[in-house]
């Protein structure tokens, strides 16, 4: 009796695990950022099909360097001090958490060793489905175009994988997004693999959040940080020369649905 009970229980647990694995999908992307000091990052999209939720992880630590132009190389060689954004100890990822069912999006970003929660507004992307097709790594893909916060995105999606999700905030197509590029060619996402056999989704270290901000508040914080802290006169007896830092210029988002006044626009 007891053996039978445990056998049934075991089968139940195994079955639960299999169902859970089918409900969870992991898609790995590589993002290439074509900036002054270009680099690639591994990024991971965890999909919970049942709950219609996604969690997107951006690995800011293990970056793969790209090719730096001669001009930038020269400038770097002449610099006396070279600095980059620091991160909290053990902090690898930034996160984009989307509840598509509830139309909620929350970002978690490590900005100069400060871990912020940013409550953003859900991107209701309006895609134009285009007639073009192409094959990407054996997957038949179709093209779609959308505009979001000042950037036009061109995406290639695979209708054979009917998951309406994609990298970063991009979603809402009748197939997983296999490639996406903004029309300036600055941000490029490419799907690297897809895994249907996962059971766990990573946990966001929410205990490290020091402040919860809206998207607008976060932008204003960055504006103040760069222009009044990083570029502030450092010491008595020293004259500083620096141009103001436009925090949206090279960003994935350059225009906003809300009114915002940046310091460099004065």
């Amino acid at each position, binding site marked *: 009796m007891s053996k039978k009970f445990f056998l049934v229980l075991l089968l139940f647990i195994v079955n639960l695990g299999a169902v859970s694995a089918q409900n969870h999908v992991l898609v790995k992307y590589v993002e290439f*950022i074509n*900036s*002054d*000091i*270009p*680099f690639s990052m591994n990024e991971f999209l965890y999909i919970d099909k049942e709950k219609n939720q996604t969690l997107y992880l951006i690995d*800011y630590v293990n970056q793969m360097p790209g090719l730096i132009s001669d001009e*930038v190389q020269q*400038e*770097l060689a*002449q*610099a*006396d*001090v*070279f*600095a*980059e*954004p*620091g*991160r909290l100890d053990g902090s690898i990822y930034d996160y984009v958490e989307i509840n598509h069912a509830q139309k909620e999006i929350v970002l978690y970003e490590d*900005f*100069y*060793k*400060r871990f912020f929660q940013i409550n953003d507004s859900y991107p209701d992307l309006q895609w134009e489905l285009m007639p073009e097709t192409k094959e990407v790594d054996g997957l038949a893909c179709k093209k779609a175009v959308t505009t979001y916060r000042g950037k036009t995105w061109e995406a290639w999606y695979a209708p054979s994988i009917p998951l309406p999700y994609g990298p970063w905030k991009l979603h809402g197509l009748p197939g997983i997004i296999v490639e996406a590029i903004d029309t300036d060619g600055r941000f490029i996402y490419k799907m690297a693999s897809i895994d249907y056999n996962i059971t766990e989704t990573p946990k966001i270290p929410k205990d490290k959040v020091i402040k919860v901000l809206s998207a607008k508040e976060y932008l204003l914080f960055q504006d103040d*940080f*760069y222009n009044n*802290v*990083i*570029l502030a006169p*450092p*010491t*008595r*007896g*020293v*004259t*500083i*020369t*620096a*141009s103001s*830092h436009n*925090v949206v*210029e*090279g*960003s994935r988002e350059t225009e906003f649905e809300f009114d915002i006044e940046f310091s460099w626009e004065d």
Partner: protein
Amino acid sequence: MKKFLFSALAVMAFAGSGFASNEVVSDSSYDKEIFHFENLNAKIIDKILKADILNNQNPCSYTIVYVDRYGDRKTKTGRSEGNVSSVVCSNIVAIEIKKLEETGASVKEFSIEWK
């Protein structure tokens, strides 16, 4: 032109060696600075002494390049108002680096160009 190169570790030792972090130490307190140097790593002292700090006073200029999270570079330059010794020049840059690190930046390289 003289150029001193220090490791980031040396910078930290230098910045934390007793200078007031909110002001430039003037050349009049030079002896005091030397006193503080005695507490520093011998290797750093050796480098500074080799730079012939006792005989020269020049303008101190420096350039900071920092990259944002997208890999775009921003440049900030600083120049002393008048001539200073290499010790004071080092101090100016050390304070700047310390402040940068206090903001959460990660300083990868550091040198001082003292013309």
